[in-house]
């Protein structure tokens, strides 16, 4: 319940009027000499209870009548799903805010309540009025359609008169539209964090950014240029594992957006990669671009995973390998490997277009040995990545992965392609058996499949405990609900099994979204209150 004209609530003390009048009347009743009051008392005996009840009833009714009239004057309203009309200013001055304004209009649409989105251009077609008259028109509409909630999205400097509608003025000194960046755990050390800040400032100014990790706090600045809606890039490198909090200190008049981002930098050690064969430029560049996720080692013994690049002669290897079929392998080589290239196909992986040869047939390969000039055979395993038509692009061959990239001389694009690093990362991670999820949040139910019923050690930043698996359908699972964010690992006592995962902050309950729910819609109850007051008045007359 709410009041649309709360200034009338000052009249609420008038509710006590009937009480005051009652008491005053009682006090001021004219004394009247009477010969024999005893008889009157006897007469009132039977009537007393009813008279008292009647007095109380009249008092309550009169109080209620006044209360109802005051509430009606204050325009008591209850929340209802009124239709909404969003009026979007589409003048040129809105250009810097246009995306924000449209997003805001869409947010207003989110609650599933009826909305009539009226954009400015359509609007002017109908009404033929300039923006200067919008406020007047809006106020007129408010009176004409009392059950419609009007939302006006415009720039603040245009609003000169008070508007009886919901107003979203976007002309703040600084408005940060959004902050983009990876909000998940980065499994690297050191970790490169890159944020993109879409914001606009009316003056040249420095946007303070506060980075905190535990008790450690660093303050940095982003220089903003005036009168531009720019996309600023903010890069930083953190080299200590832990939870990081990036807070943008916004001035109070800034458009509220999520100005805080949380990161977790994991403690997983870098994956040691041994490149066998030709360490082509694209591979070395891709690994270097990982900023420490992968470390190239010179000897195969300490390596976690081996990359076989353009191997043309048979090799013997006892480690998981990523087999890259590069440009040095001619089509006939594919045939020799048992891979037939049937057509070129454009596929979309991780949102990036990528030209690849889909594999139509892969033969089995025995163990790790790759006998070149022999056919490979595929035994079991699931492909990791699919093309648009469902064709597997990355094929598991035994314990190895075959990535049939078409690598041309102009492969620099691939190196810088965002697809390559995650592809490499996922593949290598898979091969090193360090698979795990990284997008858990506090309160999630985490279920990890483990090989057997032994007790497994759960280790976290400040936690070490033993979890006993439970059996479901013949398989063993460890179940756990994290209570605090951090990096965790579940490992078997002998270290054969390791499952790394991180738990991030749960953003639920901490929202900097514009709270549309607060802009509730109301139905004014004035008419019903007045009807109730009239009915009570009739009852009062009957009682009198």
């Amino acid at each position, binding site marked *: 319940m709410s009041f649309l004209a709360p200034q009338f609530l000052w009249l609420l003390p008038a509710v006590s009027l009937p009480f005051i009048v009652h008491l005053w009347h009682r006090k001021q009743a004219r004394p009247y000499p009477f*010969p024999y*009051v005893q008889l*009157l008392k006897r007469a009132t005996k039977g009537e007393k209870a009813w008279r008292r009840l009647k007095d109380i009833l009249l008092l309550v009714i009169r109080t209620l009548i006044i209360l109802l009239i005051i509430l009606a004057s204050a325009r008591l309203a209850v929340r209802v799903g009124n239709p909404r009309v969003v009026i979007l200013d589409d003048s040129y001055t809105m250009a810097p805010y246009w995306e924000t304004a449209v997003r805001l209009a869409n947010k207003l649409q989110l609650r599933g309540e009826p909305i009539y989105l009226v954009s400015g251009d359509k609007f002017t077609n109908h009404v033929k009025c300039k923006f200067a008259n919008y406020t007047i028109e809006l106020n007129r509409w408010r009176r004409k359609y009392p059950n419609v909630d009007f939302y006006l999205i415009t720039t603040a400097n245009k609003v000169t008169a008070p508007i009886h509608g919901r107003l979203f003025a976007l002309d703040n000194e600084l408005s940060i539209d959004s902050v983009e960046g990876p909000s998940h755990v980065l499994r690297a050390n050191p970790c490169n964090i890159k944020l993109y800040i879409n914001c606009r400032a009316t003056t040249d100014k420095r946007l303070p950014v506060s980075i905190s990790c535990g008790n450690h706090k660093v303050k940095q600045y982003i220089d903003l240029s005036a009168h531009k809606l720019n996309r600023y890039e903010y890069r930083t490198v953190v080299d200590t594992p832990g939870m990081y909090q990036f807070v943008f200190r916004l001035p109070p008049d800034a458009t509220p957006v999520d100005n805080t981002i949380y990161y977790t930098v994991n403690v997983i050690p870098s994956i040691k990669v041994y490149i066998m064969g030709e360490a082509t430029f694209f591979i070395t560049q891709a690994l270097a671009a990982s900023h420490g996720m992968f470390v190239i080692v010179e000897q195969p013994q300490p390596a976690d995973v081996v990359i076989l690049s353009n191997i043309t002669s048979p090799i013997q290897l006892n480690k998981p390998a990523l087999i890259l079929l590069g440009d040095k392998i001619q089509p006939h080589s594919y045939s020799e490997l048992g891979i037939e290239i049937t057509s070129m196909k454009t596929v979309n992986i991780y949102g990036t277009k990528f030209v690849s040869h889909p594999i139509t047939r892969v033969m089995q390969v025995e163990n790790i040995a790759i006998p070149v000039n022999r056919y490979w055979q595929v035994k079991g395993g699931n492909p990791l990545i699919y093309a648009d038509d469902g064709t597997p692009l990355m094929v598991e061959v035994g314990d190895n992965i075959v990535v049939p990239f078409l690598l041309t001389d102009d492969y620099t694009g691939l190196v810088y392609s965002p697809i390559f690093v995650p592809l490499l990362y996922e593949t290598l991670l898979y091969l090193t058996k360090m698979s795990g999820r990284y997008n858990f949040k506090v309160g999630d139910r985490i279920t990890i499949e483990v090989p057997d019923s032994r007790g497994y050690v759960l280790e976290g930043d400040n936690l070490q405990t033993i979890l006993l698996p439970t059996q479901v359908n013949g398989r063993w699972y460890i179940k756990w609900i994290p209570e605090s964010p951090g990096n965790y690992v579940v490992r078997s006592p002998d270290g054969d099994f390791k499952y790394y995962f991180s738990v991030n902050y749960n953003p639920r309950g901490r929202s900097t979204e514009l709270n549309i729910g607060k802009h509730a819609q109301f139905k004014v109850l004035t008419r019903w209150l007045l009807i109730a007051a009239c009915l009570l008045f009739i009852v009062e007359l009957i009682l009198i």
Partner: protein
Amino acid sequence: MPYLIVMIDPKILFKLKKMEFRIKSLVEGKLVGIHRSPYHGFSVEFKEHRSYNPGDPLKYVDWKVYARTDKFFVKLFEQETNLTAWILVDVSSSMDYGEPRKFDYAATLAALWSYLLIQQKDEVGLLLFSDNVLQELPPSSTRRQLFKIFELLDSFKPIGKTAIDQALHKVSDNLTRKGVVILISDLWQPHDQVLPSLQLIRTKDNHMMVFHVISNDELVLPAERLRFKDLEVNDEILVNPTDIRDSYERLLKAWIDEYRVNCLKYQIAYQFTPTYEPIEKIVLPFLSLRR
């Protein structure tokens, strides 16, 4: 004589002058009057004969009967005497009420009765009472007594509580002979206190008349919400008369009926006397034309 002048039309007074008040029961008087006396002797009215007894005065022997019957008979006569009337006027505070004021009406009634009785040579005594006997005028049949009564009634102001029983007891003590007691009151006293006293007067074979004076304002309550304050005791009630009108009228009727019925039972002449009634209308039923 303000009351007579104000309230009684001289024509009515002239008319009343021709009337007389006679009581049917016997009264014991000192003077010769118009009322029947229980004493026999020489007087005007022959009653009966009885056998002569030795010692009877010879002048009462009816010689005509002796001539006819040859036996001695003595003539007996009934004595006509005057009566002694006590007029009891309630002067309690409750009488100071109404328009016209109940006390004024009662005083006028008392004055009228005094006038009528003294006119026919009866003795009239006046007793003004409230919670006690406040003034007492011994009975007398002189013209002067009438003026005394008027003067007393004129000068008195209602005061105190109603205690009819005490006044009746006092009169009962005062009455040495059979007489008439006229009670003029609003009877605002519980029945159980008043009725035994009325009965006491009647047991002594006195003639009793009760004039129940009620103001119109008592019969019909005012309309507005008022704080009713008792005239006699320190008591009050805040009430809206419209709320209790029905029950009040019912109770008032029961109150009056209780007196009426009991008076009938004790052979007491009860007269409901609302102050809006002309006073002669109240008195006339008790009078008859002078012979």
